[in-house]
């Protein structure tokens, strides 16, 4: 019982801190919004990579799809999309606050559902792959999406797309998106907590530990895998829209399908925090994001080189992650869990 009460105290404290943060540090609101985005990236990656043992390098695909779908819906409700994108930069039509809000309110769920449906369709073929074939196949999918988006004129091709700009009269722009992203993360966190605590969590853990045996035990592995990828895609797609609107410009390779930055970061953050735990990705993303912002400030141009080095360092020397390390150090804090290789790298 105390355990549960501790949990609520913790959630309450984090919630209060998160709601107070943009008011206490108004000049860091954008960075704080990105912090929530990073946490979401790590959490959604961990559904597949950590809990189910399917290491996807292409989950950024769903984020990009969500970003584009949401922008197209937002624009398409009031203007002709092709005309809008071809006029990029010249005379961007303005949106009234209510048009903007309705567009976003409709665009986000549509984007999330579109991403989830895409995951189900792609999953029919991709989720049959195992191990490194899945990893490289998804890597290919992510880059393929970037290349296609960069060549498709309807959504602005390589010159990108400007989503509807945030209108005046809705208060502070960073604060608005901060709370939208915070809301998505809270929804994602509790959805995952609920999913992991039941049959679904056990099933995907069984798939991670030994898929053939899980199948032999009568689990519909394909169904669970598809649902897991769909949930992951849904939240990524949901976040795509507000992030596109927050940045104010969608570049196919650097914002929407940023495989070599966000696409890798999501893997890395989950590993840093500890794969296959609910808090690991949250902690990993927080530490990673703060470190990244420090690099960004002090390294002037060399930050991406340092990022590459950091990836190698974390993967080679710290693959068990913070939660895995803690579990090794003080197993009693994690209860009597019978596990041969706690949070170790899966096969």
């Amino acid at each position, binding site marked *: 019982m105390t355990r549960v009460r501790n949990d609520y105290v913790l959630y309450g404290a984090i919630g209060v801190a998160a709601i107070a943060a943009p008011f206490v540090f108004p000049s860091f609101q954008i960075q704080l919004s990105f912090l929530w985005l990073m946490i979401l990236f790590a959490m959604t990656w961990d559904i597949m990579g950590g809990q189910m043992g399917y*290491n996807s*390098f292409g989950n950024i695909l769903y984020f990009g799809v969500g970003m584009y779908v949401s922008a197209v819906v937002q624009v398409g409700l009031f203007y002709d999309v092709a005309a809008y994108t071809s006029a990029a930069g010249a005379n961007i039509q303005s949106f009234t606050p209510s048009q903007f809000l309705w567009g976003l309110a409709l665009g986000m769920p549509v984007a999330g559902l579109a991403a989830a449906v895409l995951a189900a369709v792609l999953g029919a*073929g*991709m989720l*049959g*792959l*195992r*191990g*490194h*074939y899945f*990893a*490289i*196949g998804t*890597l*290919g*999918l992510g*880059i*393929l999406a970037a*290349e*296609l988006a*960069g*060549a498709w004129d309807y959504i602005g*091709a*390589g010159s990108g797309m400007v989503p509807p700009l945030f209108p005046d009269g809705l208060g502070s722009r960073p604060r608005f998106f901060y709370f939208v992203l915070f809301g998505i993360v809270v929804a994602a966190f509790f959805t995952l907590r609920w999913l992991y605590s039941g049959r679904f969590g056990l099933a995907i853990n069984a798939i991670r530990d030994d898929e053939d045996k899980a199948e032999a035990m009568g689990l519909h592995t394909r169904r669970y895998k598809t649902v897991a990828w769909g949930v992951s895609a849904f939240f990524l797609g949901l976040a795509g829209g507000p992030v596109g609107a927050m940045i104010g410009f969608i570049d196919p390779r650097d914002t929407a399908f940023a495989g*070599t930055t966000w696409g*890798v970061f999501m*893997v*890395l953050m989950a*590993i840093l925090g500890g794969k296959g735990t609910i808090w690991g990705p949250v902690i990993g993303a927080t530490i990673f994001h703060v470190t990244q912002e420090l690099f960004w400030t002090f390294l002037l*141009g*060399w930050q*991406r*080189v340092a*990022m*590459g*080095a*950091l*990836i*190698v360092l974390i*993967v*080679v020397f710290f*693959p068990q992650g913070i939660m895995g390390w803690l579990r090794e150090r003080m197993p009693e804090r994690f209860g009597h869990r019978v596990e041969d290789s706690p949070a170790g*790298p*899966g*096969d």
Partner: protein
Amino acid sequence: MDNIQILIDAPSLALQLAIDGILIGAILALAAFGMALVWGVMNIINIAQGEFVIMGGYATLTLTGLGIPPLLTLPLAPVVMFVVGWIIYRIVIFRVVDRDLFISILATFGISILLQQLINQIYGPDIQAVQSGLTTRFFFDDALRLPEIRMLAVGIVIVFGLGLAVFLKSTRMGRAIRATSQNPRAARIMGVDTDKVYATTYALNAAICGAAGSLIVMTLVIGPFSGIVYTVRSFLIVIVAGLGNIPAVIVAAFGLGAAENYAGFILGAEFQVAFVFGLLVVIIVGRNLLLGRQRKYLK
């Protein structure tokens, strides 16, 4: 599809595309040799493969800038890359050789990002090329055009393929490499220094990529971020041809080069890279679905 009609109407153009593709495919075969070698011996899928290729190109670029004739850099770039490969093995790769594939994929992915950003910092983001100094030959009343450098590339690939086969077959190190790839534990017991074998294999791979990059900078262009496409191309060739089958690698590479060229012409050049990645997904998913009928999957 108007462009298909053009191809049918102008067979010489169709032939030109196929030959161009095959000649480029020859260079891709080099990178694929290296990938198959590292994969087969060390059980590592080297995502940094493309960056090694690109670095070979930049090595040629730098050496040419120092006043060395471009063609003379062809043997020098592999030497430079051999050293680079050895250093990377000594710093990172030896720590991940025995670990599971996910760790090594991610570690080489990190190396790949590190290298491409390093190149970007040093040489800038622009695409660059080097003039080889060789001319282009024309056949059949100028209907067919063959740049000499590309023909040279095919020659080099065949020499490398044969050289690699002989090296693996009959030298002491080659035998050690083959023994290690069969069973590293047994090889170690029999007195093979597997660490040295892995270092040589990885450095050799980098050297082969260096040669490929050196040819690419003289036939096409290179840029700091074009590496990943070469990684995927090598991976594609290897999974189609299988590990340890040198003639099949060459054939698959020719096929990929030609297919890519046709796709670039028919779909438009902006879709050529997308075609490579699309092909990757289609081939692995397709092969996996075929295996799935026997309740197996790609390993």
